[in-house]
Structures are given as structure tokens and as C-alpha cells.
């Protein structure tokens, strides 16, 4: 049928999968809500899958198992860039469209939806510098996860380039372990009683940092990426300066849309892709935008309240 005559509806037997890692993170909730909303609007099914661990090979297995179920499309947030190149290649070769979101893998896919990690890092650096008045000492925490490393690296680079008065005095490899991060921060603060700020590229370490800051008298400005209810509460109480939150809902929604458009050939771009039998789309980068959560707007970000208001079903996989 001609593209212009198609309707955004069905076929009902299509199932789209979202595949993530470390599923104990609130971030995916909103992302999957967006994904699911779009799916429901189109009258197809959406399923959430992934691994609870921080483990590349396990996520590859989960991904490959999704492939065996002949899905209509997969939205993937890979834990490890390189490890997913071949699996994504083989899915694409089997005509299963793949979209990456939040984190990427360096091979052809139909799209990549994210807010820029560089932008987040730079944004964070500037926000931090502003809060500190352009001078002081800061600490960062790290993880072995490419997008987090990019955030931290740009954070440090931006400070160095734009705010010479600010010094990064310590880095800690947190691997998202709150209790250990907390202890590390306390030690660093001992050594640097004038520590002014802490930046964490993810939530759990951010929470630990805020906890430490509170116990140290609340003078340290804590900034992190990602949010959850505990973080929001801390922000509202002024225990944390703020959080940078990519628009996860839109990430999910847009990811779905790209998959759907591709799978059902809803578009007809002027590039010969359909003639060659390739996927119609290969969007290099779609930005879903980001928000800075501060004490002013934190109350709008509670996932549970939002879910309740939406009348959404619980976020459960099956």
C-alpha cells in the first residue's frame, strides 16, 4: 500500500522489546512508560526485558534471547558499546530493527535516541561552577560505563577549560555502591575540609554524596545525573543541589516510534532505501532533551505520583 494511505494501527501481533541493564534503576520506569504509551497508541505489544546485573555478557544473552522470539523491534540500552556491535549487526541482518537509547553501540541501527552525555557533563560543570561562585574544590565519582565516563570526563574538561578557579581534588570509582562511596567521600572531606562540591554521573553515588554532605554540615553542593524519589526528596530538602535528568519518557517514546516507522514502512524517505531493501531509517542521533531538577521543580518529578496520576499499571514485566 502507499505510505500515505497507511494508518498508525497494528498489526496486533507485533511485539516490541525494550532491553536494559541494571534494572534496579528508576530511570527505566519512565523510559518504558513512553515506550508502552506509544505501543498502546499503535495497538501493538511492548515487553520490558533486561538483566539485573551490571554484566555485558548477560545482557548480550538477554538480547539474543529476545531475538529468538522474532520481535518486531528492539530498543536497546547497551551496558557495553563494543560487545553489542555484533549482536546488533546480526539482529539488523535478520531484519529486526534496533534502536539504541541512553547508551549506544557503534554500528548501524535504525536510530539512537539520547540526550548528549557531553552536554550533560558540561551542563553539570557550569551549574556546579555557578553554585560555587567559580572557585573551590570538587570531587567526582566514576563507574565503568561509557556514558557515565563521558559525563565525568566532560565535566572535568569543562571545569578545566572554563573555570580555572575550580580544582578537582579527588576521583572515586564507586561502581554505584552507595555505602562505599559514602565512606570514600567522608575521607576525602576530612582531607579537604573546604570541599565545595561533588558530581556523580548516576543516582546511587549521588545519594551517598548527599548523605555525606548532610553529615558534614550540608555545605557541600551535590549534583548528580538520574533521579529517583529519594534523590528528589533530598533535593527538596536542600540536601542536594540538583540532578540532571534526561527526558527518559521521550527517550522511550521516540525509540518506539522509530522502530514502528521502520518496521511497518510508515515513511518513504527519498533515499532509495526501500528500493534496496534496507531499513528505511538510520537516524544517527535524536536528542530527547534534559532537565535540571532543583528544589523549585522537584515535586513534579516523582515517578510514583506521575504513574498514579496517569492511572498507569504497575511497572511489572509481565
Amino acid at each position, binding site marked *: 500500500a502507499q505510505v500515505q494511505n497507511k494508518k498508525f494501527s497494528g498489526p496486533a501481533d507485533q511485539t516490541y522489546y525494550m532491553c536494559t541493564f541494571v534494572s534496579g534503576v528508576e530511570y527505566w520506569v519512565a523510559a518504558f512508560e513512553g515506550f508502552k504509551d506509544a505501543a498502546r497508541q499503535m495497538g501493538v505489544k511492548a515487553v520490558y526485558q533486561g538483566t539485573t546485573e551490571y554484566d555485558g555478557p548477560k545482557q548480550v544473552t538477554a538480547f539474543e534471547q529476545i531475538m529468538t522470539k522474532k520481535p518486531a523491534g528492539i530498543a536497546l540500552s547497551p551496558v557495553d558499546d563494543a560487545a553489542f556491535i555484533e549482536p546488533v549487526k546480526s539482529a539488523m541482518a535478520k531484519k529486526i530493527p534496533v534502536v539504541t537509547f541512553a547508551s549506544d553501540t557503534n554500528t548501524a541501527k535504525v536510530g539512537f535516541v539520547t540526550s548528549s552525555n557531553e552536554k550533560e557533563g558540561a551542563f553539570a560543570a557550569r551549574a556546579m561552577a555557578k553554585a560555587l561562585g567559580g572557585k573551590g574544590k570538587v570531587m567526582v565519582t566514576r563507574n565503568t560505563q561509557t556514558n557515565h565516563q563521558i559525563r565525568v570526563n566532560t565535566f572535568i574538561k569543562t571545569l578545566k577549560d572554563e573555570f580555572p578557579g575550580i580544582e578537582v581534588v579527588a576521583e572515586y570509582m564507586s561502581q554505584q*555502591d552507595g555505602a562505599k562511596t559514602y565512606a570514600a567521600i567522608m*575521607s576525602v572531606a576530612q582531607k579537604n575540609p573546604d570541599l565545595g562540591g561533588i558530581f556523580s554521573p548516576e543516582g*546511587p553515588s549521588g545519594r551517598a554524596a548527599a548523605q555525606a554532605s548532610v553529615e558534614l554540615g550540608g555545605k557541600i553542593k551535590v549534583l548528580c545525573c538520574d533521579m529517583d524519589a529519594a534523590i528528589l526528596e*533530598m533535593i527538596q530538602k536542600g540536601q542536594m543541589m540538583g540532578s540532571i535528568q534526561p527526558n527518559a519518557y521521550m527517550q522511550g517514546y521516540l525509540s518506539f516510534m522509530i522502530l514502528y516507522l521502520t518496521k511497518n514502512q510508515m515513511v518513504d524517505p527519498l533515499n532509495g532505501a526501500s528500493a534496496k531493501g534496507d531499513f528505511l531509517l538510520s537516524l544517527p542521533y535524536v536528542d530527547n532533551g534534559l532537565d535540571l531538577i532543583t528544589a523549585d521543580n522537584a515535586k513534579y518529578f516523582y515517578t510514583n505520583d506521575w504513574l498514579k496520576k496517569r492511572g498507569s499499571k504497575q511497572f511489572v514485566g509481565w
Partner: protein
Amino acid sequence: MNASTIKGAAPADAKRGRAGRLGGKGGFREGTTILVILGLGLIMTFLSPYFLTVENFRTMFMSFAINGMVVIAMTLALISGGIDLSVGAVMALVGIVVGTLFLNLHMNIWLAAAIGIGLGLLIGAINGLFITRIGLSPFITTLGMMQVGYGVASVVSQGMPLPLQSLPDAFKFIGRGMIGSTGMPFVILLFLVVVFVFDFLSRRATIIRKIYYVGSNEKSARFSGINVNKVRMGVYMLVGALAAFAGILSIARFNSATNTLATTVNMDAISAAVIGGASLNGGEGTIFGSVLGIALLALIQTSLNLMDVGPYWQSLVTGLVLLVAVSLDFLSHRKTR
């Protein structure tokens, strides 16, 4: 188990055994661990002006006061010849259940905490039943229970951390309050009291002595009129309760509950206990020794942080210091032979 058999960790144990006799009550083992800790502390005092400060020690103690409860529990499980891999999951689950009861069902927090302890006991009892009735190995049983525990925690919390800033101050106090103007956190005092009590009991109380008997030779224990199953059941219930207690303390301290709370606590607890002289073969170990073990680990961690060891080097240096410290410890009391 064949008593005439020397098991895996044998050369070490055999040697320790002989040394142990010299020191009669096993005082040597802990003595050398203390020396290693003091030595490292001395080095750090020279290397960092921040080491010998009240704040630093407070931080250090705070870093293991709560997990220390789990170490005590794990030590008892190891002494009995078992192991409990579900402690971390119980901590997380109890935190989430107590938090949910408080937040969503508006239950009185103390009542919720009591229910949390009850849940810990229940999980311990289930572990105990699988181990004593069906006869599964403690490793497999508690591994399965660990997954079930994390699973329930994840399902209940929907994978989202529970915000608990609204906890009453009296409850928060047990996790983060200071005692009067002393600057001594309540939770550290609590920890010290619990350690003291359990260490005392483990040396003196008949009920804990039975755990040693069971761990040393289960058959002999049976032939001495000890109800082995009851003892093991008791151990796992106690472990469950202590882990639950740690979970409750941790929500009081961090004012949030998550299913990823205590992912590394199992290995940390086993490591601390083994460093402190417990053996995976049972019958050996002391509470005090295990607490020294966790203190040593915390000291290493603190030292690295104070020394500005880069993030990528920390694990490397931790491993090296651990190996050197434990070897020194070991060699030093091998010399006493």
C-alpha cells in the same frame, strides 16, 4: 564428615591448630591481627595528617558499623560449618518492606521494624528448614534464598528506591544521631555493644558453644546429645534476624531503601570473617576476630582514600595490602611455634 580427614584449608589450619594450643584460648590469632591493624594505623599516622582525627575514626567506624552486624551473623554461620549468602538480600528486603509498610500503609515505624525482624527470622527459618529437613547444602539454599529475597525486594519496590525522609526523628536517630554532645554516633555505640555482647556470649554462652560443637564435628555433636538440627535452625534464624536488624539500621541511616542496597555485603562479610580467623570448614572463628577483620578492611579503604589513591588503583592496592597484611599476620603467628 570424616573426622580423620584433613580438609581443604588443611596446612593452614593444622598449623594454626598447633599455634592455637600454645596461646591456649586462641588469643594469638587476634593478637596478630591487632598488630597488623596497629602497624597500618601507625604508618598512616605518619603519611596523613588527617588519619588520627576524631572525624576520620568516626567515618571509619560508621562505614562498617551496620554491615558489622552482618559480619557477626556470617561468623556464626561459618562457625556452624555453614554459610549464609542471603544476608545481603535480607538486608535489602527488610529495608524495603519496612519502608513500604511505613510509607504506603502508614504503619507505625517501630511496629514495622518489629515486623521486619520477624521477616528476617522467617527467612532464616526457611533457610534452616531446607538445610536441616531436606538436607540441601547451606551454600545452595542460601543462594536460592538470596535470589528470592532480591526478587521480592525488586518486585515490592518496583526497582525504585523508596524515599524515607519522612521517617520520625526518633527512628532516624538510631541510624544517624549523635549521643549528646559527645560527637559519638549512636549507631557506633550500638555496634560496639552488640559486638561486645555477642563476643562475650560466643565465648561463654552454652547456646553459642553448641554452634562450635556442631561446626567442629556434627556427628560427635549428635553423639553428645546436641540436637544438631535445632542448633543449625537457630543459627540461620539468628543470622536472619541480625541481617534484618542491619537492614532496619540502614534505612534509619540512609533514609531510603533500595533493592541494590547490599549487593556486596555477602562477600565482604565472608572476607572479614575469614580474615578474622573463621574457616569455611566450620568450628573456628570468633566474633572479635571477625570484627577485627572488617576493621582491617575498612582501615585499608580509608587509608587509600586519604592517600588520594586514584580510582583505578584502589582495587589493586586493596588487594595487595590485603594479601600482605594477611600473610604477615599468618607468618607472625607461625613463628610463635
